């Protein structure tokens, strides 16, 4: 079960990496980065999984708990990823307003002309 989750996370990471390296549209690049980060969150959730483990709340009779630390790390990574995605999209909007395109190579070409 855990291995299947790791394989799925690796697949999602590869999809994100492929998108980041091959796409020219800045919005798609932002989405690809977000997909890559999501794969790491999937892997964190898989690491935290304990077969038969209960929620980490101490109660009578419970001896096996799920470690909450990876969950905390996953939540933090989600929040940071959302913040970075928001900034990246804001910068994309700023560049689109000036250059009239979201094609990253076209924008690089225009900045080179301007120097």
């Amino acid at each position, binding site marked *: 079960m855990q291995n299947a989750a790791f394989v799925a996370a690796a697949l999602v990471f590869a999809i994100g990496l492929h998108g*980041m390296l091959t796409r020219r549209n*800045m919005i798609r*690049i932002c989405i690809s*980065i977000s997909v*890559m*980060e999501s794969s*790491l969150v999937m*892997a*964190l959730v898989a*690491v935290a999984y304990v077969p038969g483990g209960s929620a980490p709340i101490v109660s009578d009779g419970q001896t096996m708990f799920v*470690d909450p*630390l*990876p969950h*905390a*790390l996953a939540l*933090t*990574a989600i929040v*940071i990823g959302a*913040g*970075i995605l928001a*900034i*990246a999209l804001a*910068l*994309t909007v*700023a*560049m689109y307003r*000036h*250059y009239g395109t979201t094609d990253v190579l076209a*924008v*690089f070409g225009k*900045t080179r002309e*301007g*120097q």
Partner: protein
Amino acid sequence: MSHLPVLVVVVPIAGGFLISLVDLILPSVKKAAVLAVALSHGCVLVLAAFAALSYPPLMYVPGSWLPPVGIALRVDSFSALFLILLAVGHCGSVLFRLGSEGSRQWEGKTAALTALLFGALAGVVVTADLFNLFVFVELATVCTVGLISRKQRPDSSVAGFVYLMIAAVSGALLLFAVLLIYSATGTVSMSLVAERIHEVPAALHGVILGALVVSFGIKFGMVPFHVWQPRAYHAAGTTTAGVLSGFGMKVYLYALFRLLWGPLQAPLLLPEIFPVLQVLAMVTILVGHLMALLENNLIRMLALSSVAHGGYILLGLAAAGDVGADAAVAAALFHIAAHALMKSSLLWSAHHAISLARSSRIVDHHGVAREMPVVMAAFMVAALAIAGIPPTGGFFSKWLVALAQGSLLPVLVIALGTVISMGYYARYFVVVMAKRPPEPLRQVRSRSILSTAVVVVFAGVVAAAGVAQGPLQSLFVVMAGSLTGSGGLP
């Protein structure tokens, strides 16, 4: 006194939000607030550093929850150097900015982001927990993007976007490494990871090390991950570039040192990584210097020089692969301290030259030295030091890195790098010393004594460091011993 490790993080972060608030509701006292935050942060950093220089290291456990349940902050002799550098960087950049020409238009956002950046960098230095390390690195990334793109020029947005994308990859790799460490050892506390890392298979250990080297390599501009640096520094402007190159970059190198010797125990368990790092360092030195030689823009040239100097520090780290190689770590620390002062002095002197010439193209700086002799004298002293001319501190730091090498090739690379850097600095000197400017230079309205004093003091300290290199080297050996575990003893 016992709360100092947490105060070095809390003071600037709270101060950053305070500056934003003051900027909104009481802008007339904004400068006083900015200065108060910088000076108070500087005091806390220096106090923590001096407290840490006495054995044993300062430990702080928020809420008294010991690891692995809680987190810990740790300040030792090795981290003390970086806390002092951050104090110098925060106070120096704020004083320079207050005194420089553009201070009238100085936005509260810039000051707030600078305070938050220094808070995040201090967090990277004091944390003893990989989870916290990830959070502070990401906070520093967000602040850096804000500082790069704050000028609201089209090229600033492009540079900010490029940096953000490459930093997102760096962050993903760091998180990946933390994930692997947690899955292999069951903890993210650095001290507990160090106890359990020997149980991790060598292949997995190698993957973790590789991910961390690339992650932090991106951040400090290791070739081939340096492409963001010239564009970002150019867009950010000289003052921010001085902060990022002089002080930000050093903290990422600190993190690499700390992780290799601390939780990952690389010298003991995976010494094969050090020859690889040595090759990467030599490539970084040569590529950085050669690209700087071909560059016609002053800020980009200085940014590429920073890439090369990241290579020198990495070369010191690589030479320290032998267990207990305190001399090599001490040499790297010497170069870290010297480069922080040299590069910030160069970039901040360049700020005056660029505002006078209204251009950062080297060819437009004809005759600048005749208009601002003191600032350009400071630039020249810092340039001589960074090129490695004796008897400056820059010469001795390079010399010690070269002495720490176990073979001839890295020494030749250091020598070749020195020759190339002398070439591009000499080219700039020839231009600024020219007799007749081809076009009228701009009349600088306000180049205050304060901003000039900052660059002169930084350049002067680097020059004087050569005279005091003996005691400094002894101090750096003690600091290195705190990292390697020898305590600085031979």
